[in-house]
C-alpha cells in the first residue's frame, strides 16, 4: 500500500455485525412510480383493486415492461405523492395491507435448486430475477455500446466484485448480511457470477473478521477473498474498490465499472437475490440498516414501501431530540423531511442524528493547510477548487478537473476552518452545467 493512501479518505468506525431482523409488512406501502434509472412508471392496477403479493402493479411507461410488484397483499387505495431521497415529489401508488400477506399464485418462477443454476442461460436467469421483481438489468445486465459504425456490442465482465463492506459506515447493510443465511448468499453470488459471465469472483470481506463458512464456500467455488478495511471511507465506493482490487481505472464522472469489465454488487443485494431465487418468492424486501442515535442500531429486512418511521420505531425510537434523518450514511446520505417516505430498492439504510450532534459550517477563510489535498481520494485540490467556485469562476475550476470530484465529502470532513468545501464544489458544478445548458 502506498504511504499516501494512509492519509487519504477518512477513518470511520466499522460497526459490529449482526444478522438482519425481518420486519413484518407495513400496514400501508407507498410505491414510488419511478424506477431506479428515473424512468416514469404507470400503475397496472386500478384504485380499489385487490392485489396479491407478487402481482404486477406498475409497468414502464411506453414499453410496458412489468417492473413493480406488490410487496404485500391488499387493496390499491389510489395514487398519492411522496418524496424521493433527494426530496423531490414523486407520484406513488398507495397499497393498503389486508394483513394476510397472501402470495400470488401465477407469474412467479419456481424455486431454483443450486445445482440447476448451470442449466439456465444467463439471459434466462436475468429474466427470472426480473420476474421476481429484482430489477438487475440496468445495474448488472449486459451494458450495450455502439461502435462508430453502428454495431452494438457488449463488453465481457472479467471480475465480479462482491462487496461485503459498506460505502458509508456505520450504515452497514452489506456487512450485516455476512451474518445472514449462508446458503442464500452462496446461491446469490453464484447466480450473479453466472449471469454476468464473470471469469473471476472477488469477495471484498472486512479485513479483521473471521467468516469460516463464507471462506469455506469461497474455496469450493474458487472465489478469491480480498480483505478490505471496512472503516476506510470512501474506499468501498464501487469504482474506488474496483481500482483497488483490480487496478482498472473507471472514468469519472459518467463511467461505470462495467466499462472496464468489472461488476461490483453489494452483498446485501446478492443475498436478497439468493433468497428470492431459492424460495421462488418475490424479492420485495431489502436489507436496510438503521444507525446513529436510535436505541438499538441494527439491520432489518424490510419490505419495499415501508415508511422510514417504521424502521426508526423498530430500532427502538430516537435518542434525544430529533435532528436529521438521512437516507444513506452520514457522509453522502440525503436528509429527509418526510418520515412517511418509503424504503425503495436503492435504500441502503438510514442514519439518525440527534439535534445536539448536528454540525455547523463557518465563514472562515481557507488557510491553505492542504489537509483536503491529503485526504482527497481522487487527487484533486478541493481548497483551490472551492475558492474558484465561491468566487464565480467554475470554468477555471472545471479546467482543474472539478468534474472528476466524486463528492465523497472527505474534504469538508477534515477542514479545520470548517469550510463547506464539497458543497461549494457541487455549487460550481451545477452553476457551470446550468450555464452550459443555457448556451
Amino acid at each position, binding site marked *: 500500500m502506498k504511504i499516501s493512501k494512509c492519509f487519504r479518505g477518512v477513518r470511520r468506525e466499522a460497526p459490529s455485525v449482526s444478522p438482519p431482523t425481518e420486519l413484518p409488512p407495513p400496514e400501508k406501502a407507498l410505491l414510488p412510480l419511478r424506477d431506479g434509472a428515473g424512468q416514469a412508471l404507470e400503475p397496472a392496477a386500478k384504485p380499489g383493486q385487490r392485489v396479491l403479493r407478487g402481482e404486477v402493479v406498475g409497468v414502464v411507461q411506453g414499453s410496458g415492461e412489468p417492473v413493480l410488484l406488490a410487496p404485500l397483499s391488499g387493496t390499491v387505495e389510489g395514487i398519492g405523492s411522496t418524496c424521493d431521497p433527494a426530496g423531490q415529489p414523486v407520484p406513488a401508488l398507495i397499497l393498503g395491507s389486508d394483513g394476510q400477506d397472501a402470495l400470488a399464485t401465477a407469474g412467479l418462477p419456481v424455486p431454483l435448486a443450486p445445482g440447476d443454476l448451470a442449466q439456465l442461460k444467463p439471459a434466462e436467469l436475468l429474466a427470472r430475477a426480473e420476474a421476481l421483481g429484482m430489477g438487475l438489468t440496468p445495474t448488472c445486465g449486459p451494458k450495450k455500446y455502439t461502435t462508430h459504425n453502428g454495431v452494438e456490442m457488449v463488453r465481457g465482465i472479467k471480475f465480479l466484485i462482491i462487496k461485503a463492506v459498506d460505502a458509508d459506515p456505520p450504515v452497514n447493510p452489506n456487512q450485516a448480511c455476512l451474518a445472514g443465511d449462508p446458503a442464500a448468499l452462496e446461491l446469490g453470488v453464484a447466480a450473479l457470477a453466472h449471469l454476468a459471465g464473470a471469469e473471476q469472483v472477488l469477495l471484498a470481506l472486512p479485513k479483521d473478521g473471521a467468516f469460516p463458512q463464507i471462506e469455506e464456500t469461497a474455496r469450493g467455488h474458487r472465489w478469491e477473498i480480498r480483505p478490505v478495511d471496512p472503516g476506510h471511507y470512501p474506499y468501498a465506493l464501487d469504482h474506488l474498490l474496483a481500482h483497488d482490487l483490480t487496478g482498472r481505472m473507471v472514468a469519472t464522472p459518467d463511467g461505470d465499472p462495467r466499462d472496464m469489465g468489472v461488476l461490483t454488487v453489494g452483498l446485501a443485494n446478492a443475498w436478497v437475490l439468493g433468497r428470492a431465487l431459492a424460495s421462488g418468492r418475490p424479492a420485495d424486501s431489502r436489507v436496510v440498516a438503521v444507525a446513529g442515535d436510535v436505541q438499538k442500531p441494527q439491520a432489518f429486512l424490510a419490505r419495499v414501501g415501508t415508511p422510514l418511521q417504521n424502521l426508526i420505531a423498530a430500532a427502538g425510537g430516537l435518542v434525544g431530540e430529533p435532528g436529521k434523518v438521512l437516507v444513506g450514511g452520514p457522509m453522502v446520505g440525503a436528509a429527509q423531511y418526510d418520515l412517511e417516505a418509503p424504503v425503495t430498492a436503492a435504500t441502503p439504510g438510514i442514519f439518525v442524528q440527534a439535534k445536539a450532534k448536528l454540525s455547523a459550517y463557518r465563514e472562515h477563510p481557507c488557510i491553505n493547510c*492542504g489537509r483536503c489535498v491529503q485526504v482527497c481520494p481522487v487527487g484533486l485540490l478541493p481548497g483551490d477548487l472551492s475558492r474558484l467556485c465561491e468566487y464565480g469562476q467554475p470554468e477555471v475550476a472545471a479546467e482543474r478537473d472539478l468534474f472528476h470530484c466524486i463528492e465523497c465529502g472527505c474534504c469538508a470532513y477534515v477542514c479545520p476552518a470548517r469550510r463547506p468545501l464539497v458543497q461549494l464544489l457541487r455549487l460550481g458544478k451545477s452553476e457551470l452545467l446550468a450555464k452550459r445548458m443555457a448556451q
Partner: protein
Amino acid sequence: MNASLLTVSPSPHLLGSMTMRSMHVEIMLAMAPAALAGLYFFGVPALINLVAATLAAVVFEYLCVKLFKLPDRQGDLHAVVLGLTLGLILPPGGPIYLPIMGGLLAVGLAKMIFGGIGAYPMNPVLIAWAGLTISWPEQMKAFFLPCPGDGKWEIAETFLMKLRNDPEVITSTDLSALWAGLTPGEIGTTCTWAIIAGGIYLIVRGIINWRVPLGVFVGTLVMSQIALATDPSLMEMDLAGSLEGLRITWLHLGDGGLMFAAFFLATEPVSSPVTPKGTLLYGLGIGFLAVIIRTWGAAPGDGVYYAVLLMSTATPMFDRLRPAVLGKAQREW
C-alpha cells in the same frame, strides 16, 4: 414524531473533530518538548523571551482587530502560536524589545496588513525574525552556553558561526551533545530530539505534510555533500565521499534552526504548498538553499530561515504541480 421538524442540509452531515483552535492547540503541544528543553537549557531569560513574544503577538492582534475593525478571529489562537514560534527562534540573551518588536512585526506587518490568516504570502514569524536580524544583528547573536553551573550566562558562538571560519569543527564537534541540545543556540531549536518528537506527532495527526521535512532532509544531505566536495576551505578537510563526510550533514541538521524550520516553520500552512510533488520540491529547495546560504552567504543569522522565506514565495508555482486525478483518462482524444 412528525410534530417536530427535521433539519435538512446537503451532505456531509458529520465533521471531523479538528477546528482551527484545536489544530493550533495541537501545534503548541507539539512545540512543547522543544520549549521545555529550551527552558531547561536557558532558564529565566528564555522564559522571559517566550512570554514576552507570545503576549506581544496576542496584544498586537487585539489592537489590530480593534483599530482596523477586522472580523474578530482571536479565538482560533493563531496569534498565540505565532508568538510562541517567534519566541522559540529568538536568542535567549537578547534585550526585551526584541520579542516585543517581533510580535509587532509578525502580527502587524506580516499577518494583518496582508489580510489576516489565510492571506499572507510568507510565514509571519520569519518576516519578524528577518526584520529583527537585519535591524539588530548583534543583539540577535546573544546565544548562551546552556546550563551554566553558577547561574552566570556566558555568550558563545554557535557551531555554524564557527564553521564559517574553521572547518575543523566538522570533525571535532561532539555530535550527540549537539543533537541533545548542549550547544549555544536559539531558545527552542537546540534540542533536536525534542523537535523531532513534536514533528512526528504533527505528521501522525495529519496536521503537517510529511513530504516537507523529508524534502528538507534530503536537500540538506545532498547539498552539504556537494559543499564538502566543492568549497575550497572544506575541500582541505578531504572528507568528500567518506563516511566521515556525513558529519557535516549531521552538523547542519542538528545545529541552528534547520530541524525546527523543517517541522514547524516550512510547514506553516498558509505559506506552504499543498500538492504532493510541490511539497516535496519545496522541502528540497529549502534544504538546498539552507546549506548554500549557511556555507557561502553573507547575511546575518541562520540561512535556513532565509531559505524558507525564499521558497515560500514560490508556493503558487509549486501548487501548479497538481497530482494525477483518479478517473481522468491519461490521454484525451
